[in-house]
C-alpha cells in the first residue's frame, strides 16, 4: 500500500516506472541490442586489421584493411586516416601526401554522419577496458577519488595541438594508449599492456570513466565533430516521466539534460557517444536513434501544432496557411 502512495508522477502526468530487467532471454536481448552490436563492431574491427596483417585476409588479392586505426587502406584503394592524428602532424608544421589527407576527410565525413563519438563507443578498443572497469566499479560500489571537470578534455585537446606545434612531433600520437594498444595487438605485443592496466586502474578505482570521459583529447576532438553530426538520440518529450534511468546508465550523464532535450527534441551535446545504452533501459521508449534533419522537421511541426492548439481562439498565419493547404 505504501508503494501506491509513494508512486511519483512525471511531468507528463504519468506514473514514474523504474526500469526492470526483463526475465526472458529475448527481452534481455532487446535491452542489450546495441551493447551486443557495439561489441561485435569493436571486436570485428580489431579482427579485420589482425586478419589482414597476419592471415592474409584479402579481397581480390589485396588486403581487406592494412594498417591500423591511425591510418589504413581499405580494399587496397580506399585510404582512411585518423583526422586528429593528421591534424597533429599538420600542427607540427609538416606537409603531408594527399593520400592521407583524403583518408582523414573520408573518416571525418563518416563520423559527421553517424555521430562524432561513435568512434569512442563503437570502434575504440579502449572502450572495452573502460566498460570492464565500470562494471567492476559498480559491483564493488567504488566512489570517485578525484574530482575533475568534464571540460578538462578540451584543455587536453588544446594542449595536444600546442605541444605538437612546439615539439614538432604529433604530441598525442606518441603517448596515445589507443594507438599503442591497437598497434601492439596488430603488430606484436610489447609492454603496451602496462598502459592499459593503468587506464583500467584509473577508471576502476580513481575516477568513473576517467580516461574516456574526462581526459582523452581524441574524444574531445570527436565531441566537436559530434556537435554537428546527423545521427542522434531523439527525445520524445510527452512520453518522458523523468525516471532518470537513462542518466544512471549513461557514461556521459551531463549530455542527458532532459530540459534541453525536450526543448530541442534530441540529445544535442556533442559529447554523447551514441552508444545506445539509454535506449535499452528507457521504460517509456522515449529515446531512439534518429536523423537530426528529420527530427528537427518533425519537431518543428510538433511545436507549431502545440502552439496552434494553445492559440486556437486566434489562429496564427501558419495555421491559416496550413488550413489552406
Amino acid at each position, binding site marked *: 500500500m505504501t508503494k501506491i502512495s509513494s508512486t511519483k508522477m512525471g511531468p507528463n502526468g504519468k506514473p514514474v516506472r523504474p526500469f526492470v530487467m526483463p526475465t526472458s532471454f529475448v527481452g534481455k536481448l532487446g535491452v542489450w541490442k546495441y551493447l551486443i552490436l557495439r561489441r561485435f563492431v569493436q571486436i570485428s574491427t580489431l579482427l579485420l586489421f589482425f586478419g*589482414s*596483417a597476419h592471415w592474409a585476409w584479402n579481397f581480390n588479392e589485396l*588486403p581487406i584493411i*592494412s*594498417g*591500423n586505426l*591511425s*591510418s*589504413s*587502406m581499405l580494399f587496397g584503394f580506399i*585510404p582512411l*586516416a*585518423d583526422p586528429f*592524428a*593528421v591534424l597533429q*602532424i599538420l600542427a*607540427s608544421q*609538416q*606537409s*603531408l*601526401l594527399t*593520400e*592521407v589527407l583524403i*583518408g582523414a576527410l573520408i573518416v571525418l565525413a563518416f563520423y559527421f554522419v553517424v555521430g562524432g563519438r561513435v568512434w569512442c563507443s563503437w570502434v575504440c578498443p579502449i572502450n572495452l577496458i573502460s566498460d570492464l572497469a565500470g562494471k567492476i566499479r559498480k559491483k564493488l560500489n567504488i566512489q570517485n577519488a578525484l574530482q*575533475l*571537470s568534464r*571540460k*578538462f578534455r578540451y*584543455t*587536453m585537446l588544446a*594542449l595536444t595541438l*600546442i*605541444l605538437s606545434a*612546439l*615539439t*614538432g*612531433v*604529433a*604530441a598525442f*600520437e*606518441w*603517448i596515445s594508449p589507443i*594507438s*599503442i594498444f591497437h*598497434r*601492439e595487438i*596488430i*603488430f*606484436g*605485443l*610489447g*609492454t*603496451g599492456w*602496462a*598502459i592499459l592496466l593503468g587506464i583500467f586502474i584509473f577508471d576502476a578505482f580513481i575516477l568513473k570513466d576517467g580516461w574516456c570521459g574526462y581526459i582523452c583529447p581524441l574524444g574531445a576532438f570527436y565531441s566537436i565533430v559530434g556537435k554537428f553530426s546527423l545521427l542522434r538520440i531523439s527525445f520524445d518529450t510527452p512520453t518522458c516521466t523523468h525516471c532518470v534511468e537513462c542518466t544512471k546508465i549513461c557514461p556521459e550523464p551531463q549530455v542527458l539534460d532532459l530540459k534541453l532535450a525536450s526543448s530541442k527534441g534530441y540529445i544535442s551535446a556533442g559529447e554523447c557517444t551514441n552508444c545506445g545504452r539509454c535506449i535499452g533501459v528507457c521504460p517509456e521508449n522515449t529515446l531512439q536513434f534518429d536523423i537530426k534533419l528529420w527530427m528537427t522537421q518533425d519537431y518543428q511541426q510538433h511545436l507549431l501544432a502545440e502552439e496552434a492548439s494553445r492559440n486556437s481562439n486566434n489562429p496564427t498565419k501558419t495555421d491559416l496557411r496550413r488550413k489552406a493547404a
Partner: protein
Amino acid sequence: MNSTSLKARRKFLKGITQNTAIAATGGLIWASLLQKEARATPFAIRPPGALKEDDFNAKCIKCGQCVTSCPYDTLTLANTSDQIPIGTPYFIPRDVPCYMCPDIPCMNACPTGALTPELETIEDSRMGLAVIDIENCLSWLGLRCEICHRECPVKGTAITVEHHPRKLSKHAMFIPLVHSDACTGCGICEKACPTDEAAIKVVHPKLVQGSVGEHYRLGWKYDSSITQQYKPEELKKNAPVKAESTGLDWLNTGEL
C-alpha cells in the same frame, strides 16, 4: 553583488585555475616525454626512403602499412619496450635484412610521405651504412671469406674486394671494403656474415661517418672531386670594408 553569485564566481575561478595547473604540470611532463622519445634515439635503421630522423618522426603516422606491405616481414613497429621512438618502423638486419624489392612496396604504402616517394630506384636508398669490424672479419684475419662481397646486391660498387699482397702478414689478403656512396644499408651482408656476431654491421651513418670539410686539398689527386669542386665561400656582399685598408696593414696605420 550577493553572496551566492560571489561564491559561484569563486568556484568558477578556482576550477579554471585548477584545470590550468593540471594542464601545465601534465604538459611539462608530456613535453619532456616527447623530447626523450622522439629525439634521444636517432639511430634506428629505417625502411628505404625514410626522411631524415626528425622529419621522419614527425611525419610517420605509425600506421604500419609499410610493415604489412613488406613481403619478407623485414619491418616491425617499435613497441613500448624498444629503445626506438614508439610506433615507428625499423628493422634489425641480422634478423631479416631488406631484400631491396625493385618496386619498393613499403615506400609506396606510406600514406604520409614519411618514406619519401621521391626515391626513384631502391639503389638510391640509404637505410644505413655497412661497417666492417677489422679485428673480427675473417678476411682481415687472413682467411678467404668475402661472403659479404658476394651477397651484396650492389656488389662491385658498394662492397669491393681489395688485394693486399703479403708483406708482414703470413698470407696475402683479400679484404672487403664498403663504399658509402653506393651502400644502401640493406643489411644482407650483415645477415650473411658467418662469424658468431656479425663482423660487418649496418649502422646509422651518423654514428661512424666523418666529414672531411671542403678546405682540404688532396694535391696528388688533381681530378679528385674534392679538389676540383672546392670554391671558397663568397664574401658577404654588405660586409663593411675599411677605406684606408688598401695597401696598408693595421699595424702601420697608427702612430708607429
